[in-house]
C-alpha cells in the first residue's frame, strides 16, 4: 500500500480533486444523473475520475452513449470493453432510432453529418429516462463559446442554454435546484486543457482507442483536413482516396472528424506532439465548428453537448 505525505500538490492533482468534488456533489444532490460516454479521451478520463470518486461503490449513475452509428469501429469496440471491465451500466441512445421515428431528418449530400442530429437524440433520451443531470467531458479551452460555460450549466425544459442568464458560480458551491423537466449539464473537466487530459492519461496509464495513435488509414482530403474513407462516403470532384499515417485528436462522428498527419505512436509521443502543436483541437479536426465563427455557440444554445 502506497503511503505518501508530500506537502505539495501538482496542478493535475488539484484538477483531479476539483473534478471528483463536482461528481460527488452531483451524485448527492440530483435524483437521476447520467454520465455521457463517447469512448473519447475526455470521457475516458471522466470514467477514471468517477472510479476515484465512488469506488469501492458502484457509480451512482448509468453511462450513456449517443451513437450516430457513424463511429469508428475501434471506438465502439473499446467502449463496450471498458464498460464491461468497470461492470457499470451503459445506455446506447441511437441517432438512427431518432431518424426512424421521424424525430430527426438525415442530412444529405457529400457533407452530410449526423453530428447535429445527436442533439435530438440526446434531449429525447434525457426526457425518456428522466435524467436531471448529465455529465459531459467538455472543457473550456476547447472553443471560445465554452469559455463562459459554467461547471454546472442550467438547461431549461427545452434543453436550451441561455448564455445571458447563467447562474453565477461562486467558490465551489453549486446550486443544484431545478424544476421538473429542467436539467443541468455538468462539466467536471471545465478547467482542464487538452494537454492536461493527455498528461493525466499518461499518469494514470489509461487505455485509449487505437485511433488516437498514428496509424495507416485510407483518407481523402477536404478543406485541408483528412477524413477517414468509409463505405458510402461521397467524394466531391477531384477528391481522391489515398493512404496516410494519421492520428485523431477527437473521436467524433467519422463523417466530420478529421485526422492529422502524425508519427506519434506512443502516449509520450502524443503528449510531446500536443505540447508543441500550433493548431487548436477543434480547429484542426472538427468540420462542424469551421462552418462559422459562432457555430458552437448556436449549437450549444439548441442543447448540444
Amino acid at each position, binding site marked *: 500500500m502506497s503511503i505518501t505525505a508530500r506537502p505539495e500538490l501538482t496542478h493535475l492533482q488539484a484538477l483531479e480533486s476539483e473534478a471528483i468534488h463536482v461528481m460527488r456533489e452531483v451524485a448527492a444532490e440530483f435524483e437521476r444523473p447520467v454520465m455521457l460516454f463517447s469512448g473519447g479521451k475526455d470521457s475516458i478520463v471522466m470514467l477514471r475520475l468517477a472510479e476515484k470518486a465512488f469506488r469501492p461503490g458502484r457509480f451512482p449513475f448509468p453511462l450513456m452513449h449517443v451513437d450516430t452509428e457513424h463511429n469508428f469501429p475501434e471506438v465502439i469496440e473499446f467502449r463496450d470493453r471498458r464498460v464491461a471491465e468497470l461492470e457499470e451500466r451503459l445506455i446506447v441512445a441511437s441517432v438512427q432510432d431518432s431518424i426512424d421515428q421521424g424525430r430527426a431528418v438525415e442530412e444529405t449530400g457529400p457533407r452530410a453529418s449526423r453530428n447535429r442530429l445527436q442533439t435530438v437524440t440526446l434531449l429525447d433520451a434525457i426526457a425518456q429516462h428522466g435524467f436531471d443531470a448529465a455529465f459531459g467531458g467538455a472543457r473550456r479551452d476547447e472553443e*471560445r463559446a465554452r469559455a463562459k460555460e459554467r461547471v454546472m450549466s442550467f438547461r431549461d425544459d427545452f434543453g436550451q442554454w441561455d448564455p445571458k442568464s447563467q447562474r453565477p458560480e461562486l467558490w465551489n458551491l453549486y446550486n443544484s435546484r431545478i424544476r421538473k423537466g429542467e436539467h443541468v449539464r455538468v462539466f467536471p473537466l471545465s478547467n482542464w486543457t487538452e494537454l492536461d487530459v493527455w498528461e493525466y492519461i499518461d499518469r494514470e496509464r489509461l487505455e485509449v482507442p487505437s485511433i488516437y495513435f498514428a496509424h495507416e488509414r485510407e483518407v481523402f482530403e477536404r478543406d485541408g483536413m483528412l477524413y477517414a474513407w468509409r463505405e458510402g462516403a461521397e467524394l466531391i470532384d477531384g477528391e481522391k482516396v489515398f493512404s496516410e499515417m494519421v492520428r485523431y485528436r477527437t473521436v467524433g462522428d467519422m463523417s466530420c472528424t478529421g485526422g492529422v498527419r502524425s508519427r506519434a505512436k506512443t502516449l509520450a509521443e502524443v503528449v510531446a506532439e500536443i505540447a508543441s502543436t500550433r493548431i487548436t483541437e477543434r480547429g484542426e479536426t472538427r468540420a462542424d465548428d469551421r462552418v462559422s465563427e459562432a457555430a458552437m455557440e448556436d449549437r450549444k444554445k439548441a442543447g448540444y453537448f
Partner: protein
Amino acid sequence: MTLDLLRFTTAGSVDDGKSTLIGRLLYDTKQVFDDQLEHVAEASVRRGGEGALDLALLTDGLRAEREQGITIDVAYRYFSTVALDGSSGRRFIIADCPGHQQYTRNMVTGASTADLAVILLDARHGVLEQSKRHAFISALLGIPHLVVAVNKMDLVDYSQERFDEIVAEFSQFAGKLGARADLVYIPISALHGDNVVEPSSNLSWYENPAGPTLLSLLETVEVAYDHPFQTPARFPVQWVIRPQGVPGAADYRGYAGQLASGALRAGEEVVVLPGGQRTKIAAIDTYDGELEAALAPMSVTLRLQDEIDISRGEMICRPDEAPEPTRELEADICWMAEAPLRPGGRYQIKHTTRSVSAIVEGLLDSVDVHTLQRGDAPQEMGLNDIGKVRLRTSAPLFVDPYSRNRRTGSFILIDEASNGTVGAGMICAPDA
C-alpha cells in the same frame, strides 16, 4: 506547500486594456494557436485595424458580446509556462471579469476562487472610482494578492513620475481598505508588450524583487493552501460510500469529501459536527491507496474507527479546533438578483455541503460602492449592492470567519421560488 496552479482574476474599466492584456499574455507565452491567430488577423482587418493584430480579439467570447463589443460575463482562459520537460513554470486559470458597475456580481464570482487579482488602470486616467471598487471587491473576497497594473505607459512616455503619482494615490486609498492582501504595482503596456511577458528597456527604471514583468510575478507568487499544517482541518462530508452488492466490500463505510482546509492524519482523534461524537480516523482512502495524511484541497474518503451514523452535510474536524455550531450569522452579502433582499426574506443557504433554510433578520449596513464607506442600514438591497446582514438558519452551520477560511466562511443564497443563485455571503468575524 507549492501548487503549480494559479487562479487569478483581471478587472478594469472599459477600455483600460484588459482584453489586450490577456491577449498579450496568451500571445507572448505562445499559447495562441495558428487557427485562432488566423481568425484574429481576419477580424482585425474586418474591423478596420491598420494591419496590426488586435490581441483583444483573442479573448472575446459569445456572439452577443461580440456584437456589443463588450465583455458581459466571466470567461475563463488557460495558459501555462510549463517548460516542455515539465521542469519549471506554472499553469494559470484566468477568470476574466468585466468591469462595469452593473456587473459587480461577475467580479465577485470571478474573485471567489482567485488567488490573485490584476487590477488594471489607464496611466493617463490614474485611479478611477471603478479601480477602487475593483480593489475593494478583491479585498472583500479575500484574494490574498493584488497587482495594480498601470497600463498604457506608452501613452505617458513611460514616465516614472506619472507611475509614482498613481502608486501614491492608490496606496493612500489601499490603506483605508484594511486589506490584508499584499499589494504590488507594475507599469506595463499591454499593446506593445512592455513588462507583460518581456522586460522592457522603456521601463528600465522599474524594480521589483520578483522581476520586472507581470508574468514573473504570476509565476512566483505563493498560492493559497500554503500552510495546511497550521490551518484548522475542516472536512465537510460530501458523500457516504456504502457499496451494495459489491463482492468483498459489503462492510465498507467511508465518508467522502474534499478537505476545505488544513490537514488530517490517519490515526488521529476527530469530532463529528453537529453530533459531537468522537472517534479516530481508521484510514484515509483514495483510489490509489491509503494515505498517511490528506491536505486541502484533496478529495479523499475517511474511514472511522467507530460505527457512527454520519451523513452528508456533517463536518469532521479536530476536537481542539472545531468551530462552534451556530444558527446566527452576520455576513457581508453581495446581492445578485433583480428582486431585492429585504428583512424577513427566506432563502435556501448552501454552506460547504450543507443546505438549510435562512431568514433575513436584519440589514445591518450598506457599502457605498462609490465612496466605499459603510453607511446606515438600508430598507432593502438591490442588484449588485453589498452590505452586512444578519441571518438565522433552520439548522446549525459550522462556520469560520471568511477572513480566516474562504471555504468554510462562504455561502450562497438561493431563491426557493426561482431557484436562482441570488446572493454571495462572506461570514464576518464575531464583533467585526
